[in-house]
C-alpha cells in the first residue's frame, strides 16, 4: 500500500486543527493562574464563546463581529467570576464550577434557535501555496487566521511572562499577593485583567469550534475540552511551550483513535476514546518531573483569596 505523502500532511494538519481550541483556552487560563487565580469555568466560558460566535455570525453575517463578539462574551462572563472572587472574595473553586454550569445552561437556552442552521465558510490564508511543498504544504498553509494565532500564542505567552515588565508583575502577584501589594502593585487590578484575558481566550476557543472547526451549533459542543485545557495547564506546570506539546499529543491521539476505530482495530472503543486523556497526562507528568522547576513555576498563591486587611 502506498500512502500519499500529502495524505499524511492532511492528517497532521487535522491534528493541529483539533489542538487549536485547547491551546487558546490553556494559554488564557495559564495567564489567569499565573496571577494566582484558579478559574475552573473554562468549559463554561468556551461554550458561551461558541454560541455567541455562532449566533452573531448567523444574525449579523459578519465573521469579524462574530469572533470579536465571542471574545467579548468570554470577557463578560469572566467578569462575573472576577467580581465574585476578587471583589466579593468568594471561593475560586466553587465560583468556577458554578460558572461552568451556568455557561452550559445558558448556551443551551440561547442555542435552541440555532440548532440545525448551517454555518458559514471561514476564509483561509495561503490556500494557493498548499500544493507547492509536499507534506509541509498542507501543514503550513490553508488555515484560518485563528489557527495561526493559536500556534504563535504559546511563544508570545512565554515571551510575555519572561521578558516583559507586565509579565513579571503577573508572576509576582501569583507568587505573593501580599508582597506585591506592599510594593504598591494593585493586586486586584492585575487579577481582574488576567481573569478577563483568560475569558477572552476561552471565548475565542469556543468560537473556533462553532465557526471554523465544525461550523454549526450543537448543544454542549465543547465536550469537555475546557476541562482538558485546565488539565493541560497544570500538567504542563504552567509552561506555555509544554501546553503546545500536550495539546498536540491530545489532538493527535483523538484523531488517530478515530481512524483506528474506522479501520476496525480490535481494541475496545471505550479504551480508544480514553487513550488521549491517559497518554497526554502521562507524557506531561513525565516531561515535567523536575520538582525544583515545578516549585519555581507554580504560582504559590494559586486559588487563594487575597484581600488587603486595613
Amino acid at each position, binding site marked *: 500500500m502506498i500512502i500519499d505523502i500529502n495524505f499524511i500532511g492532511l492528517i497532521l494538519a487535522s491534528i493541529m486543527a483539533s489542538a487549536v481550541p485547547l491551546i487558546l483556552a490553556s494559554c488564557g487560563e495559564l495567564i489567569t493562574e499565573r496571577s494566582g487565580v484558579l478559574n475552573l469555568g473554562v468549559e463554561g466560558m468556551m461554550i458561551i464563546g461558541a454560541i455567541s460566535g455562532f449566533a452573531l455570525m448567523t444574525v449579523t453575517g459578519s465573521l469579524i463581529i462574530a469572533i470579536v463578539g465571542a471574545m467579548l462574551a468570554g470577557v463578560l462572563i469572566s467578569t462575573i467570576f472576577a467580581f465574585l472572587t476578587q471583589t466579593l472574595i468568594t471561593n475560586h473553586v466553587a465560583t468556577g464550577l458554578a460558572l461552568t454550569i451556568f455557561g452550559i445552561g445558558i448556551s443551551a437556552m440561547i442555542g435552541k434557535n440555532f440548532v440545525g442552521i448551517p454555518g458559514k465558510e471561514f476564509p483561509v490564508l495561503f490556500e494557493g501555496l498548499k500544493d507547492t511543498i509536499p507534506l509541509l504544504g498542507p501543514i503550513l498553509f490553508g488555515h484560518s487566521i485563528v489557527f495561526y494565532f493559536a500556534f504563535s500564542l504559546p511563544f508570545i505567552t512565554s515571551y510575555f511572562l519572561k521578558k516583559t*515588565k507586565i509579565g513579571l508583575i503577573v508572576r*509576582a502577584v501569583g507568587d505573593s499577593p501580599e*508582597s506585591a501589594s506592599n510594593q*504598591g*502593585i494593585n493586586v486586584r487590578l492585575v487579577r481582574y485583567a488576567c481573569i478577563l484575558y483568560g475569558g477572552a481566550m476561552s471565548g475565542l476557543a469556543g468560537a473556533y469550534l462553532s465557526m471554523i472547526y465544525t461550523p454549526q451549533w450543537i448543544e454542549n459542543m465543547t465536550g469537555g475540552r475546557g476541562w482538558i485545557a485546565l488539565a493541560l495547564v497544570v500538567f504542563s506546570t504552567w509552561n506555555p511551550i509544554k501546553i503546545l506539546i500536550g495539546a498536540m499529543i491530545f489532538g493527535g491521539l483523538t484523531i488517530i483513535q478515530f481512524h483506528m476505530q474506522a479501520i476496525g482495530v480490535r481494541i475496545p472503543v471505550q479504551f480508544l476514546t480514553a487513550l488521549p486523556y491517559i497518554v497526554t497526562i502521562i507524557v506531561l507528568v513525565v516531561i515535567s518531573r523536575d520538582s525544583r522547576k515545578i516549585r*519555581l513555576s507554580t504560582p*504559590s498563591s494559586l486559588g487563594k483569596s487575597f484581600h488587603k486587611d486595613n
Partner: protein
Amino acid sequence: MNTNLKISNVTKIYPGCVANDNVSLEFNSGKIYALLGENGAGKSTLVKILSGVIIPDEGKIYLNENNLKLNSPLDAKKNDIGMVFQHFNLFETLSVFENLIIDSDQQRESLREKIESIMRKYNFSIDLDIPVLNLSAGQKQKVEIIRCLIRSPKVLIMDEPTSVLTEQETSELFLSLKKFSEEGILIIYITHKLKEVMQLCDEVAVMRRGKLVSVSQIKNENLESLATKMVGQNLKTIKKKKANTASDQLIKITNLNFISEDPFETNLSNINFSVNRGECLGIAGISGNGQSELFQVLSGEILSDKNSIEFNKNYIGDLNPQERREYMVAFSPEDRLEQAAVPQMKIFENVALNNFKSSNFFNNGLINEKKIRKHSKKIISDFNVNTDNIDLKSQFLSGGNLQKLIMGRELITSPDLLICFNPTWGLDVGAINYIHETLVNINEQNKSIILISTDTDELLKLSDKISVIHKGKLSKIMNADEVTSEKLGILMGGGN
C-alpha cells in the same frame, strides 16, 4: 542635607484595641533610633503608617517640614522612605534581579550597574540571577536593603531585622546600618531585643500598649531600665539549677536519617544523641537547617527506623505521635495555630485532641464532654491561661495564652520527656518568662526536655547540654556552661 522626620499625634484604632494612641515623635538624620516595645505594643503599626501600608485615623507625618500624604506604599517610596519588613516582601520564585526591577522605572542595564555598585560599596555578594528561594535569610534581607538603597532613601526603617539572622550576620548588618547612618540616612530600628538597642542605637523610644512611654538617650539607659520601661513592671529572674549528671539515660537517638523528596525540606543525616533524666538538651541553629524535620521525626509525624529511637528501653522509631504519647512523650510544635491546635475549634475540643487511653475522653465512640471540660478547666487554672471561657475558639487566644494552653495540655499528664520547638517564638516578655519558668520546673521534677530553638539566649539559659544543627547535621554535644553565644553563632553559620 539633614533629614527631619516628625510624627505628630498619630492615632490608629482597631476594633477592640488602640494600636497607636496619640503618638508624637521626632527623628533627625545622623542618628540611629530604636523603637522598642513588646509584641502588640504598637510599634509595627506605627512603622506601617510611616511606610504607607496602614492609613492612620488621625495625625500627620512631616518630612523636612512637608506634610506627607501616605496612602499607599508607593507614596512612601516616592517620598524617600524605605522599609525592610520583618516578613520579607520578596517574590520567592522570581530571581533576585527580577525582584529588584519590578518596582523600578530604570532600564535593565543601568539598574544592574547601580545594583552592582551598591553591592561593591557595602560588600554584599549575592548572585542576581538565582531565584530568591535559594538565598539564606541574611541574603534575602540584603536584597530588601538593596531594594531600598536603589531609591537613595532619606529614611530607612528596619522592622525586627535580626529575628532571622545569625550572630555574624547581625554584626554585619549593624556595620552596614552604621555606614548608612554616617552617609546621612535616618535609621529607625524596631526591636524588642534590648541588647541590640544598647549595641547599635543612639536614641530609644519605648512603646507600651499603643502609647509612647519614653524617649531617651542610650547613654542614660541600661538593660534593666529599658526592660522595666518596656514591660511596665519588674520581672523575676529565672535561675536554672544544674542537672544531676549521674542520672539514667531516657532517650537515645542512633543513626537517624531522613531524606526528603521535597527540595525545600532539609535532609537529616546521621543524627546521634541521648538525653538523661532531668536534663534539658538544647538544639540551636538558624531556622531552616533541619529543625522542623528533626522535630517531626522525634514526634512521629515522620516515621523512621524502629531502632533509631530508643525511649525508656523501648524502640519507638516507627510509632506515630499518638502511640509515642502513650509512652509519656509530649510535644509542643513551633506552629501553635496550625500544628499544635486547630484554630477553629474550641479550647476544650483542642484539649480533647490529646487523648490518652487512660483519659477516657470518649465512651463507646461518644464524646465525654463533661470530663473534657473539667480537664480543660484544670489546665487553664494550673497553667495560668488568661481566660475563663473554654468555649472560646483557640484562634482568638493570644500567642502567649495559646502556648500556655498547649504546654498545659501536654504537661498535665506529667510526661517523662517534653520535646518543644521554639516555644517562646513571637511571645512577649511576660509570657516568655512564664514558659521558661515552666520548663525549668519540668527539669526540677527529674523530667527531661529537648528544646529546639532559634533563640540562643533562651538555649543558654535553659539547657544543660547544647548541640547545633547545621544543614541537617548535629554538631558535637557540648556542656552549656562551656559554650558562649559567639561560639554557637560560629557553629550555626557552619564554622568550627
